[in-house]
């Protein structure tokens, strides 16, 4: 029973990070219909910036995360302006290839700047606490709490502020949004910034319990794709729910089935879903 609870909490932790990354991916997909393969690289850069800010600049963990959010957010915007914007009317293979080019570049750059080693990120929240008989590190509690806070804030931003609602409007109907005078360029920039910021937060939160290395984004991004396909491409609640579902499935699967193959769960899930429903679970069908 205790093991199960422990695993459920682990699932909650992993799921929180998955949800954050998937949210960014789904927002970008929602407004531009681009599967951004470079999103995992943003996640990786987010981890490194936070780490570097802490070890080289001596910033506090929280401050380092703030810097990371800004840097990765801007990087994400740069990507939109320089690459995806010029390619917006191109055949579908091109934006994917372009994104892969960026991904390869950022990974090589990270390796050049910071080396290929696996690095540990220190955290001021290393102590162990006891909650309801469970032994947890404070960092894990922080991950869950911070992720949920970020999601609530994002939800409020998208639903209750004017600028946030323009994102929703554009996701629902791009032409319509342009017709009612929404500046689609601005919305795209904003969305990419948010996506980058979410990736940076996700990476920074999880790095102290995982590791920082150039390839750290590979599995996460692929799982985020799985999540948004499960949750419906472009759907915000779908990304959150999907993230937690995958988090729980993985942590339970790792304990009760095989920890070696836990990473396969997501991909097998996706293969099954897309084999049965080639246009995703929540496709509108027909034309």
């Amino acid at each position, binding site marked *: 029973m205790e093991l199960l609870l422990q695993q459920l909490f682990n699932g909650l932790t992993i799921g929180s990070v998955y949800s954050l990354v998937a949210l960014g991916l789904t927002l970008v997909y929602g407004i531009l219909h681009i*599967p951004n*393969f470079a999103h995992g690289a943003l996640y990786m850069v987010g981890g490194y910036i936070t780490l570097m800010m802490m070890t080289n600049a001596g910033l506090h963990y929280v401050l380092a995360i703030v810097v990371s959010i800004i840097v990765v957010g801007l990087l994400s915007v740069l990507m939109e302006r320089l*690459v995806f914007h*010029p*390619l917006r009317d*191109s*055949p*579908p*293979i*091109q934006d*994917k*290839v*372009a994104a*892969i*080019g*960026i*991904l*390869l*570049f*950022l*990974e*090589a*750059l990270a*390796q*050049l700047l910071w080396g*290929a080693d696996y690095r540990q990120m220190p955290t001021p929240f290393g102590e162990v606490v006891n909650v309801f008989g469970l032994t947890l590190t404070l960092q894990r509690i922080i991950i869950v709490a911070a992720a949920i806070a970020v999601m609530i804030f994002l939800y409020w931003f998208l639903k209750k502020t004017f600028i946030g609602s323009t994102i929703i409007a554009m996701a629902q109907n791009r032409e319509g949004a342009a017709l009612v005078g929404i500046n689609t360029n601005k919305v795209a920039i904003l969305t990419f910034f948010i996506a980058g910021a979410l990736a940076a937060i996700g990476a920074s939160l999880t790095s102290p319990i995982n590791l920082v290395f150039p390839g750290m984004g*590979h*599995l996460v991004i*692929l799982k985020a*794709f*799985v999540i948004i*396909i499960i949750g419906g491409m472009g759907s915000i609640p779908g990304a959150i729910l999907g993230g937690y579902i995958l988090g729980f499935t993985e942590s339970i699967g790792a304990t009760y089935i095989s920890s*070696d*193959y836990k*990473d*396969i769960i*997501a*991909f*097998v899930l*996706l*293969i099954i879903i*897309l*084999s049965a429903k*080639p*246009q*995703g679970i929540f496709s509108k069908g027909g034309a």
Partner: protein
Amino acid sequence: MMKLLNKRNIILILILLAVVFPFINQNQYYLHILTLAFIWTIAVYGLNLLAGFTGYLSLAHGGFFAIGAYGLGLLTVKGGLGFWLSFLLAPLITMAIGLVIGLFALRTKEHFFAIYTLCVGYIIYLVIDKWESLTEGVRGLIGIPAPEPIGPITFTTPIAQYYLTLVIFLLVVLIIYRIVHSLTGRTFIAIRNSEELALSLGISTKKNKLLSFVLSTFFAGLAGAMYAGFIRFIGPEIAYTTITFDLLTYMIVGGIGTLAGPIVGTFLILILSQNLQFLQDYRMLIFGPLLTLLIIFSPRGIVGFILLHYSNWKTKKRMTIPKDQVKEG
């Protein structure tokens, strides 16, 4: 002068160059690199047939390459089969797995297809990496035998391996050329162009897409088997996305959907990265952005760029000479 430089002569000169290369250059290292380049090019041709000519961007080709390599490795090392039988079986096994995956993967389109195949690639990697009792996992598979002699011809020296690879390579290029220029190739191109239109022209898109997919996995598997027979040691990293992305880079830089693209891209990048030693680990610092820039400014890569300017130049020429002298491009 112009007459001498027609397409056929250029091809003949290139083949001649490839044949005499071991005599001009005694450096074993270069021979090794060229042999590898031929092998990679075959895999890129596989990818190009599907992505370039049929319009389906598969991100699982590193995985299929690895299935071919492990197919050969396991059949020889663990199965105790002879090299040539294994060499024949490995691409066929890859094809069979490709057929099953293709049946499902091809129900999806565009980005769903890309994500689907990326996941397939990952699963192949994870299976190879984790299934230690079969694949030896991260330790890798060692002791893959060299090709057995055929009659008096042995394949133990690097030069012999080079020629063996060259022969298979030329055969592959010929086959690809014939496919692309046949009605089958035209059918693939019609599908890439518009599936809806192809369907309404009576083309069974399902059947033809599957054919293209299976063929492309065959070439990936063939390249993998050749790689395993040449390097004679393989590890799970050959199934990783890095390989898929390498193949993709070679294809895009050379020219997606062109016949010369895979050769140009693969050789250019491999030779460049060999000559710029500092680039070894960081070559993607240059080729990553190059990939992105090319896809924005010259979507059909270097070869596409040249073809475009060549045809523009020809159009200009056409305007100055009497029309009846210009026949067939």
